[in-house]
């Protein structure tokens, strides 16, 4: 089943998106590394759900949004996109800063979405430890810090195995700049988010790598406590990129959660 690419215009910004699959709509919000498209786990989840994977404004092939200042701006934007693209009441899955966006939009309008999957999201200040300063490290070092063991990653060669082209480097810089625009200060968290999370009683699955060196697992525990109806699933031998590091396990977790019974 081939995904298709399309452009969704929202608020004067052309948003590039991958779409494909069948079933209820699932919006997938990517992390700071950009939209990796139809990777192995998406392929599996798309057997059961219609996946909408937009590229954030300012990233990849989406238009610029130099006026955005924070992750809340991006969250408000995606609530608008859900309406503009006619997604109804989609499930929302977000990874890293995409998970933070998902959490923020859930607090703004919990009834606009169905179930929520947060994968190692930023957004909360750890009670123990610190969120890694991703802007302070050279790219190669950051990649090492992001994963637990590159040799176990099935798509490693496909995703990272060759030197990037000039165009890919340009996109990487643009992605980083937009991430800096949205997350610089307070770094990678919103001090007020914890106050609003209890509003969200949608069924939520939180997924974390036990060896995550970017966002401490402590934040996952906070999310679980603060959200009204959440389960925390911790993957062993996994770093900050569960969808890439353990794609089959991750896809299974997501499918089971989205199709499973609603916990009272």
């Amino acid at each position, binding site marked *: 089943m081939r995904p298709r690419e399309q452009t969704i215009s929202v608020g004067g910004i052309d948003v590039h998106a991958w779409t494909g699959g069948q079933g209820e709509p699932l919006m997938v919000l990517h992390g700071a590394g950009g939209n990796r498209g139809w990777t192995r786990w998406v392929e599996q989840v798309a057997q059961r759900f219609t996946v909408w994977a937009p590229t954030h404004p300012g990233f990849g092939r989406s238009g610029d949004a130099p006026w955005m200042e924070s992750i809340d701006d991006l969250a408000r934007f995606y609530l608008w996109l859900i309406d503009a693209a006619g997604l109804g009441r989609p499930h929302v899955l977000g990874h890293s800063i995409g998970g933070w966006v998902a959490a923020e939009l859930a607090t703004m309008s919990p009834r606009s979405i169905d179930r929520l999957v947060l994968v190692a999201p930023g957004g909360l200040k750890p009670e123990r430890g610190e969120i890694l300063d991703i802007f302070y490290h050279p790219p190669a070092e950051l990649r090492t810090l992001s994963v637990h063991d590159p040799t176990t990653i099935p798509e490693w060669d496909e995703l990272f195995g060759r030197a990037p082209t000039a165009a890919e480097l340009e996109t990487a810089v643009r992605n980083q*700049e937009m991430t800096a625009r949205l997350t610089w200060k307070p770094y990678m968290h919103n001090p007020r988010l914890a106050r609003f999370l209890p509003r969200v009683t949608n069924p939520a699955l939180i997924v974390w790598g036990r060896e995550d060196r970017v966002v401490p697992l402590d934040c996952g525990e906070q999310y679980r406590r603060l959200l009204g109806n959440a389960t925390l699933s911790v993957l062993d031998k996994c770093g900050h990129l569960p969808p890439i590091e353990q794609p089959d396990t991750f896809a299974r977790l997501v499918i089971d959660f989205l199709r499973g019974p609603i916990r009272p």
Partner: protein
Amino acid sequence: MKLYYFSEMPHHEFPDEEGAKYPSLRLDFPNRFFNPEKARANYQRYLDEYEFADRAGFDGLMINEHHSTPSCVNVSVNMTAGILARTTTRAKLLILGNILPIEDNPVRMAEQLAMADLISGGRVLSGFVRGTGVETWWANSNPVHNRERFEECHDLILKAWTTPGPFRWEGRHYHFRHVNPWCVPLQKPHPPIWIPGTASPETAVWAGRRGYTYVPFLVPFDVARELFDYYRQGAAEVGRTAGPDDFGFLICAVTADTKAKALEAGRHFVWRMGPTLRGPVEYFSPVGMRSRAGTQFAMRARPRSLATMSYDELLDGHYIIAGTPDEVIDRFAHVRRELGIGHLLLEAQESRMDHPTTMRSIELMGAKVIPAMATG
């Protein structure tokens, strides 16, 4: 050509092998290696040297500001300007400069500069800079806003200096209900503005449009000429023709009674070129701080990092000039011919160059070099 004396007020008071253990002397090197007793004496010494440079006849005293680095512990240009405003009598005070993008209160900056201008009797030359990435980290200022904040901070300072208050400022990055400073500059309409450059064509064009004095720092001559061309382009846009007085250049320089002594003293500048500039690119140029054009220009402008050059190469490239007064006069004249500048800024004290050597260099500059360069 006018000559300016400049010291970075370094704090090279630690074993070099300790500094070498860290990715960079900036940001990472722990401040437990800062020695307050040494610093107390050094500040007095550096200020004595500035005051002597004023008496010796330098046209200006240049001061700058950096943070979280032993290469420069002048942590507040406006504080130093306030001191020199009172303790010197004739030289211009070239503040090069205030780091605008990391400033949260441009109105206070406008007041401080005005006060220094008043105390000095109108001797302030007010340089504005974007800062290195290190200062952006230090201030935790978002690098993607660096240029926008630089321009808006500049606009607000100029308005505070020139527009009678009270007025309101609601910009993108700065918001003030009541701007009505009870301290405005002596110089009218405001102190002259200077802008340094190392790699950004946009900054050169911007300075050219506004008629500010533009000073590249430690770049190859061909790069400086290219930046001056960008400046002329900006000047032409507003119907202005740029001349030598619009252009300056910064190098390291020392003179002594013999060539051997001067070359020995000049070797100290290698520390500022090498170890103090060592570190990951992310420290000096965090993401988004430079435009694409600026990044590309920087790569061309610095085909080789200063840190990789030997002392002889730094001397050959005119990054460092060290010699007897006559030799220094020849070299300065060469720089003037090559670049057509009206101002030469001399980083003239560095690192472990001792006080007597520094004072003798200042004395010889005043007695021989400054008079020789004053014509033309």
